[in-house]
């Protein structure tokens, strides 16, 4: 019933729905996915009701099918997100995003002396996802850790 209600709010014929985004991360996810520069019709839902989280964010992009690696980027801030692919108003695929083991040039290394912040060198990170501590990124080059609360997306 709940899903039906959402579809009524902003049903899309074809495109991608990114659901179950924690509200704190919604606008970061919007930035990471570079939604601002899309020409497609986009609906951004903020503080929607959610059984799982109480409140959630949702992004619906009409007529756009993201590549997996593009969507993987948001796993850093919204590991709980669900990706729904819609064609002809039907759900074709529904999957969760997994935290990637490595990420590329989407975030900045926190170390101002890191070569990636000084010369034209693309960032690469290993994602450190230990159970007992918050997720962090280890720079492939300078080996310094960037924690999520200090992360700056490119």
């Amino acid at each position: 019933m709940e899903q039906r209600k959402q579809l009524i709010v902003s049903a899309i014929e074809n495109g991608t729905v990114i659901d179950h985004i924690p509200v704190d991360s919604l606008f970061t996810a919007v930035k990471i996915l570079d939604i601002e520069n899309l020409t497609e019709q986009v609906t951004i839902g903020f503080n929607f009701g959610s059984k799982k989280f109480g409140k959630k964010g949702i992004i619906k992009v009409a007529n756009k099918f993201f590549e997996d690696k593009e969507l993987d980027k948001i796993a850093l801030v919204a590991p709980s997100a669900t990706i729904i692919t819609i064609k002809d108003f039907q759900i074709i695929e529904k999957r969760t995003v997994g935290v990637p083991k490595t990420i590329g040039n989407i975030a900045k290394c926190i170390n101002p002396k890191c070569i990636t912040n000084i010369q034209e060198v693309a960032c690469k990170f290993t994602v450190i996802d230990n159970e007992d501590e918050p997720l962090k990124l280890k720079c492939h080059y300078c080996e310094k850790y960037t924690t999520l609360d200090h992360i700056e997306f490119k």
Partner: protein
Amino acid sequence: MNNRSLISITDYSKEELLELIKLADYFEHNPEPELLKNKIIATLFFEPSTRTRLSFETAIQRLGGRIIGFTDASTSSVQKGESLRDTITNVSLYADLIVMRSPLEGAARFANEVSHVPIINAGDGANQHPTQCMLDLFSIMKTQGTLENLNIALVGDLKYGRTTHSLVQAMSNFNATFFLVSPNELRLPSSLIQSIKDAHLNYYEMTSLEEAIPLVDVLYMTRIQRERFADPLEYEKVKNSYVLKNYMLDNSKDNLKVMHPLPRVNEISIDVDDNLKAYYFQQALNGVFMREAILAHVLDLK
């Protein structure tokens, strides 16, 4: 990209560390003046260094290799704004191996991705200086006869000191017990404490140098820099607590050796120099033999 390159101390397994120590010992007793004959080694020092550069150049010369390079970025095209990518791409067409030091952290790892020949990292900012760590291990092996089960005190700036970080990583392979002696402001970073815990090793964080001395086999001193303190008053309070004086070694173990990566400023009083437990100058000499070993290993000649 070359897999034999030495970028970070963690690139080497325990077996490789031991193999290189053996090789350094071999070169100490068996000079091989022909080994690098017809090899051209580039020493690219984008920031000045005295000991590391001279030690590498001595090692190269002792093995009969020839050297090209610069000792300061101001005498290279870096001054004109050339990127590291272009400098390394070009030099790697001239030389058989590149030894490089850069103030940019991660520079050696990046260089290794664009170079056609192996890279030896001779220091990339505050990040890694693996050949220093290798010569420290060689020095510990020579003086203690083993690397296993030793008590090691690391003294001074444990927060920013890359040599102590690498030594913690390397000695974690050998069941070491660490005595981490530093002012509170300069304690070992939590990521390294975690790596000690992950290796199930014992460690003690302490602020008193004198308490640690009688307990350890190796006393590894480092410099505390004034500029590391946000509050200059804090520096004034602690600066004399981490100065080693000869009388402080009176109750130390017979096998204790005092080490230091050098340059020393005042953290080891010169009256320690004549003590048989002072080892820092021999340690620097060991760097030549260890760098011979690393050069030979990286070029797959030994």
